[in-house]
Every structure is written in C-alpha cells, then in structure tokens.
C-alpha cells in the first residue's frame, strides 16, 4: 500500500468528520481498516520473500551438490537422477497451479525452484555424457525453457533469472552486433509481465525487483551492444541516453498502486549520470573521427544507429512528458544526453580531440555542484549541501591529476576545500539551531 496516499487519507479524515460528512466512528473505522490492510499486506510479502529465498537456496544447494560429480554411480543411474530435479519441480508447480494458485508466495517459490532445476538437469546430463558445446548454447536453452513460467505461474523471479541469463548470453558475442541485438526481442518477452504487475500490484517488491533487474541488465549489455568500429563515439550518446532515460523513468508521475518500482531506475540513473559526466571531462575520450564511420550497407551500423535513435526517442518522449514536474536539479541530471549529443556533433563536424566538449562538461559539473550547494543552503538541507560540495571536490581532484600543479598548491587547495566544507556545515547547523 502506498504510504503517501495513506498519510493523505489519514490527514483528511479529521476534516471530513469535523464537517459532518462522516461521523467520528466512521473515521476511526476507516483508519483501522487501512491500518489492518497494510499490516496484513506485509504477511504474504514476508512469505514471498522467505519462500523464494528458501527455494532459491535449496535450488542452488542442489546445483552445487551436483557439481561435485557423482562418478561412483553408473551412467544409467546418473541419467535418471539428472531428470529428477526437473520432474520434482514440475510436480510442485503443477500442484500449486491446481490447488494453491491464489497464493503468490507458493507460485513464486515453486516457479523459482523449477527454473533452477531445469538448469541443474541440463548441467547433469552434460556432465554425465561429457558434452562440450559452449556455455552460450547451454544458457539460451535453459532460459527459453523457463521463460514460459513467468506467465504460466505469474512469477517474477524466473523473469529476473531470464534477464540475467540473456544478459550473460550476450557477453559471448562481444563485437557481433547482429547476435547481441537479439537481446531486445528476448527481453521484450518479459515486459508484459512487468507492465501487468505494475498495474495490479499492491505490493511493490515484485515490480521493484524486476525494475532493478531490468535496469542492471540494460546497463550491462550497453557495453557489448555497440560496435565502436562502425560508429565511433556512439558509446557516449548511448550511455548518456540510457542513464538519462532511467532518471526520467524514475521521476515519471504515473498512476500505479505503488511507485517503489521507480526507485532502482532513479538510483542507477543518478549514479550513472554523475559518473558519465565526470568521465566526459577527459578530453582524450573525444578522440574519434566521423571519417572512420562504417558504411550504411553494413547491417551492424544500421542496427547501432537504430538503437541510438530508439534510446534518444524514448528519452525525448519521457522528457516532454515530465517537463512540468521536473525541478531545477532534475533538469541538470536529465540534460546529460543533450550535452553528449552536442559534444559528439562538435567532435564530428568541427574538430576531433578538441578540448571544447571536455571543458563544457567541466562547466556542467561546476554549475551542477553550485546549484546543489545554493539549494542546500536555501533549504537548510545538509544532504543537498554536502552532495554539492562532494561533486565539486571530486571535480577539482580529477583536474588536479590532469594538470601539472605542485604538491604545495594541491595540498593548500585541499585544505581550503576541507575548511570550507566544515565552515559551511557548521554555519548551517547554527542557523538551523537559531531558527529552532
């Protein structure tokens, strides 16, 4: 249950009672009803968490036991034992579907168990018959066999396992754009489940977990997705676009029962934007030349371009949709992809390996930190103030390692920064105590 809405409701009840719209007794009954709901909603939540962790551990334990190798047994015995984990998982899931389909915790835990056991069975058979073949085939077979469980059992953990599996599968094809691109249609298989859980779920755990897995998965495949040989510098736009998109998803004002699912996107977006901004202050990273771009008859280049256009289109849609609800700090975060595009265009069209884009990002981070510091002082918020000072400090440290400055000057600067950090914090603390 969304705490924000509950707090609002509790705040409204006295006013409604005072105006005679409801009696005091009604107000108390409404309060008790929702308090009971939020407590009881934690029970199945705990069951889901512990049930899933329990079956996950059992599944992992079984896999590890099998990895120990049972060479003392005959091939026939090992063959039968190889199929038993999957058979056990199927029986459990079948029983849940027939008799206990309304208990989410059971659906999640048995589906997780079966998902792991399918992998265990395949691994055991490979071990028994010394089957080689690369792990990419093994992973893909496993993932395709378990993905239907996401919908048949209405379970999220198998979807998370699936995302992890296809992400690791792409790493076997580094540089092979066509193969890596298959990630997107594969990942799309589990998106309807996520959308459905967002719309109907009172509990945030499942959709938050999926959101975290999706955000991490997209972040990880971003390193293998682009072929820098045919589109130099594209990684800058791609990563900036991904993090900008995540940030805006995190800030989107949506009408879902819970908004906790947005937290992983916001967190990864924020961290990613800051790290990218710092990285892009190094001017050697702007060393790419549009004349080295591949030919558009190359399918890899077409796919890369389509990917960039797709990411930036989603970013633009989210930015337009969110423009009224974004505060000034949000605009700073969300502006990274636009700055990245400007920097790349400048490098492509004006001058490669120019210091201009790098300096632009220096100014961007400086303005960012000043905004945070001034906002923190005005609102008496230590978290904002110290975040701003920290960002500024990191920028100065990075530039110090860039430029040839003597130790004395570096040391003095750090001392001044440290003193400034302390003075501002103490001043704000006194100001706050004075107001109180």
């Amino acid at each position: 249950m969304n705490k924000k809405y509950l707090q609002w409701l509790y705040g409204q009840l006295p006013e409604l009672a005072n105006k005679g719209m409801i009696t005091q007794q009604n107000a108390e009954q409404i309060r008790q009803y929702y308090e009971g709901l939020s407590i009881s909603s934690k029970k199945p939540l705990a069951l889901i968490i512990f049930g899933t962790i329990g079956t996950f551990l059992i599944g992992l334990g079984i896999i590890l036991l099998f990895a120990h190798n049972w060479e003392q047994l005959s091939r026939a015995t090992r063959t039968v034992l190889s199929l038993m984990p999957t058979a056990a998982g199927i029986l459990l899931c079948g029983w849940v579907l027939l008799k206990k389909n309304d208990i989410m915790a059971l659906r999640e835990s048995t589906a997780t168990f079966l998902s792991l056991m399918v992998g265990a069975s395949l691994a055991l058979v490979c071990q028994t018959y010394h089957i080689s073949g690369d792990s990419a085939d093994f992973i893909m077979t496993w993932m395709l066999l378990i993905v239907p469980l996401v919908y048949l059992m209405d379970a999220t953990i198998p979807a998370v396992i699936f995302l992890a599996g296809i992400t690791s599968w792409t790493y076997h094809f580094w540089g092979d754009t066509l193969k890596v691109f298959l990630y997107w249609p594969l990942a799309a298989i589990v998106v309807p489940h996520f959308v459905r859980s967002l719309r109907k779920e009172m509990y945030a755990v499942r959709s938050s977990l999926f959101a975290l897995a999706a955000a991490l998965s997209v972040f990880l495949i971003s390193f293998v997705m682009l072929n820098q040989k045919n589109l130099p510098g594209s990684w800058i736009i791609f990563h900036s676009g991904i993090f900008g998109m995540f940030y805006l998803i995190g800030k989107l004002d949506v009408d879902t029962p819970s908004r906790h699912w947005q937290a992983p996107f916001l967190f990864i977006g924020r961290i990613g934007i800051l790290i990218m901004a710092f990285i892009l202050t190094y001017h050697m990273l702007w060393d790419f030349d549009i004349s080295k771009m591949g030919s558009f008859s190359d399918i890899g280049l077409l796919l890369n371009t389509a990917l960039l256009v797709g990411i930036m289109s989603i970013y633009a849609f989210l930015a337009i949709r969110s423009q009224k609800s974004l505060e000034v700090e949000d605009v700073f975060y969300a502006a990274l992809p636009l700055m990245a595009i400007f920097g790349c265009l400048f490098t492509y069209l004006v001058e490669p390996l120019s210091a201009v884009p790098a300096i632009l990002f220096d100014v961007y981070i400086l303005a960012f930190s000043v905004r945070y510091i001034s906002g923190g002082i005005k609102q008496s918020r230590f978290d904002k103030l110290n975040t701003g000072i920290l960002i500024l400090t990191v920028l100065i440290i990075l530039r110090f390692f860039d430029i040839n400055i003597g130790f004395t000057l570096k040391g003095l600067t750090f001392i001044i920064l440290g003193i400034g950090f302390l003075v501002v914090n103490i001043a704000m603390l006194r100001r706050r105590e004075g107001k109180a």
Partner: protein
Amino acid sequence: MKNKQAIIFFLFLVVAFLQLATPFALIRKHEAILKEGKTFKFRTAPIDPFDAFRGRYVALGFEQDKVLMPEGMDLKSDDKVCASVTTGEDGFARISGLNKYPPIGLSYMKVKVRYTSGKDVFLDLPIDRYYMEEEAAKLAETVYRAHSRADKRDAYAVVCIKDGDAAIDKLYIGDRPIEDVIREAVQTSK
C-alpha cells in the same frame, strides 16, 4: 475463469513436457552415439579449467587438432567444417581431411575452426572435456603430467562417432581408465 485455469494448466503441461524432453533428447542422442557409433582412440594432452555452471572437468587438447588447409578452401575462425576421421597404423585416430559437407563412406566429426596460421588450420573438436569429481580432476592433471613426457605420452580418449556427432566414452592413462589410476594414486598417497 475455470476455462482460463484449464488452458493455463494445459500450457503448463506442454512446457513441462519440453523441459523434460530437452535433456531426454540429449541423453538419447548420446546413448545412440556410444552404442552405434564407430570407436576411435584420440591421443590427448589435458589441462584443467573450471566451468562454474557445469562442474569440474579435465579439458582435453588433442594432437590431432591441427591439419593442413585443404586445397581450394579458404577457412576462417568460427567456420564450421566436417573433419574426416580414420585410424592410423599406430591404432590412434587421425583427421584425414576437411570438407564443407559430410564425406561419403567415412566417419566424420562436425568441428569448428579455432584459427588459421599460414597453411595450418587449428580446430576446436567437440570432445574437449571430461567431467570428473573435483578433487579427482586436480589429480588427473598431475597424473597426466607424469604421463606426458616425450617418452611416455600414453594418455588417450576413446571416442564414438556417428553421423558427425561425437561422444567420449572414457579417458585412459596407459591403457587404464583414469578413474582407476586416480583411485590408486589416492590410496598410494595415504
């Protein structure tokens, strides 16, 4: 609602069948190779890596994984070819040729080109691992090293080949299964 549940359960049964049928199909295929395939002895040179997903194994390298580039063929890394397999005078397997298509009348393995160097083609054979119990796999490497000196290269894998597919039956050290050699080595060390 009941109809929907019935459909879901039916689909679940279909998926369950596939989840069991996939490993079963692998088992059936490899059993057929071991029972009906032609047997060859491949001289090996094992090393010992670790595959977290599938257990500990002895990685097998083969003396026969290098062949000359056939005339008229221009092979590159990751190309798939058919390697004809015959038995040499010493009783051990030889790769006698490479073809794009299965050769008629000869046993062959489907292999991948690892890389080429000049006129030499280095192959990835589909019989590159022998699973053993963890501690045994470590010992196997030590035992093999003792049997890999130039005067004592007597380690080999017995492989069955059928219709391009290959399956390892056993790994031998000096005409004895490696499991027996390891067992004896363990008992001797105690």
